[in-house]
């Protein structure tokens, strides 16, 4: 199957600093793909490579099978970059008409109104973009990215600085674009909750590498879903930890005595081992208050990776 976006072993050095170290991921048609990472991880550089603004040092990035940076790839691509890129003194309609002209597509009034209708701005078509709120500007930027009917949308933090109700509208719009129009949407965001709500798959970029990639379910499994969280009354003595750490099949994660109050997390090789875990802890003197099914939110996965790296 041809991927809408394919980034394969892309590296990039800027100002003598290695920004990307073999970034690889794919986005399928009709998918909303979350592109995550802390500041400085290389997200914007990767996006600029996909937009054809930067050339990769090695590796390959394609949009609908066309090498990024070629005019054919750009014709398939709609985007919203950081800063929205709208002309303030031009009306919403003119902003769209300009870009339609650049893409050499007919910019009929009907088409422009239709696209503005998608983002619920048809009634503001004649207003200058400079008079719009942040949320309206972001919606207009999304409309502009859709004016030439691209197959792929790349959005760099489209809900940043937008109020909660506008965030919901934008999320719904992106889902609609992916599900009903079959477009691939790559969403770069710092908002884990947002990504968890609307993305089918994600890639977590950290220090120029994709450290996690896959569907949310796959990632949860990889990061501990299916495991068990045991909460205890008070700090876990090192002796208790030692009792369960001696059993590798229990799959104890981390070194919990180092973090007083932190629960014990297990990913047992077999779910049938859960009673044995509880028994071992009790016999070692732990006062168990709760045994819960494990599962990590995206935010927990994200912070655990970043934290693990920082403590290493």
């Amino acid at each position: 199957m041809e991927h809408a976006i394919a980034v394969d072993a892309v590296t990039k050095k800027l100002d003598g600093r290695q920004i990307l170290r073999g970034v690889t991921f794919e986005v399928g048609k009709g998918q909303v793909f979350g592109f995550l990472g802390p500041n400085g991880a290389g997200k914007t550089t990767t996006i600029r490579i996909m937009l054809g603004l930067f050339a990769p040092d090695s590796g390959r990035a394609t949009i609908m099978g066309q090498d990024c940076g070629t005019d054919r790839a750009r014709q398939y691509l709609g985007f919203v970059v950081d800063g929205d890129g709208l002309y303030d003194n031009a009306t919403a309609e003119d902003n769209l008409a300009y870009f339609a002209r650049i893409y050499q597509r007919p910019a009929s009034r009907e088409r422009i109104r239709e696209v503005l209708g998608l983002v619920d701005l048809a009634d503001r078509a004649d207003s200058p973009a400079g008079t719009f709120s942040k949320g309206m500007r972001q919606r207009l930027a999304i409309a502009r990215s859709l004016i030439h009917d691209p197959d792929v949308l790349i959005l760099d933090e489209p809900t940043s600085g937008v109020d909660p109700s506008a965030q919901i509208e934008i999320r719904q719009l992106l889902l609609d674009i992916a599900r009903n129009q079959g477009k691939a949407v790559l969403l770069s965001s710092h908002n884990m909750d947002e990504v968890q709500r609307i993305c089918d798959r994600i890639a977590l970029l950290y220090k120029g590498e994709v450290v996690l990639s896959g569907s949310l379910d796959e990632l949860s499994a990889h990061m501990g879903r299916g495991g068990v969280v045991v909460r205890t009354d008070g700090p876990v003595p090192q002796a208790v930890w030692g009792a369960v750490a001696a059993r590798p099949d229990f799959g104890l994660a981390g070194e919990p005595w180092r973090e007083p109050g932190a629960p014990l997390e297990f990913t047992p090789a077999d779910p049938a081992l859960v009673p044995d875990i509880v028994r071992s802890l009790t016999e070692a003197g732990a006062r168990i208050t709760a045994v819960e099914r494990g599962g990590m939110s995206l935010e927990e996965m994200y912070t655990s990776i970043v934290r693990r790296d920082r403590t290493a």
Partner: protein
Amino acid sequence: MRQLLAVTGINLRNNMQSKALIVVFVGIGVLLVGIAGVVAGAFVLGPEADDGDSTPAELGNSLGLIGYATTVVIIGASYSVLFSVPLTRDKIRGTLESLLATPTSARQVWLGKSLALFLPGAIVGNVLALGLTLVLAYGYLGSGEVEWNGWLLLTTHVAVPLVYTGLSLVVHVAGLLGRVANANVLNVVFLPGFTATMLNLAGRGVVDAGSSAFLAINVGAAAVLVLLAVVFARKLTKERIVLSCRA
């Protein structure tokens, strides 16, 4: 070509985005024309007409030089007003990056922005200078007193716009590849430098302003600027332009 026109159109509008800038630009133009008219009438044309020795050709040369100086200064002033603010805003607000991510080339963006800077000043400068010289010729001196010099008219209305086309290309290469403030220094230095040099050459009689030599000097200056721009434009890539937005 359609993309170049679209880029030029967007940037023309973007350059005119601030009403304050337009008011400043037009105000400077009108003020300059007014001052040039008064100074020319009181200190150049008046005495020449009063002594009765000046021929219609000499009056035509003086008028032509006044028109030349006015055009040079007004277009130069438009560059000072309309170059740095719109380009800086373009870099900061992401409009430049958005434009580069479309199927336009870095050179189309460069040419489009250069034309968008050149056109308003060239139109206003030429119209105001022409208006001033016509008012002085037919309103102040009276019809039949002036014999227009074709070389000087060509220099003013063809060569000077070419010079400023070259300058626009140069400052935009510099501004797109590096800091806008540094590129603007070229503008600031060029206007008084070029004006003073040309008026001194003509005023001191080193070169006859109404000759083909004066035209050639101006066209030569334009050629040097265009050549410089073309040489540096080879460095223009989308990556370099985007990276310059951080500067």
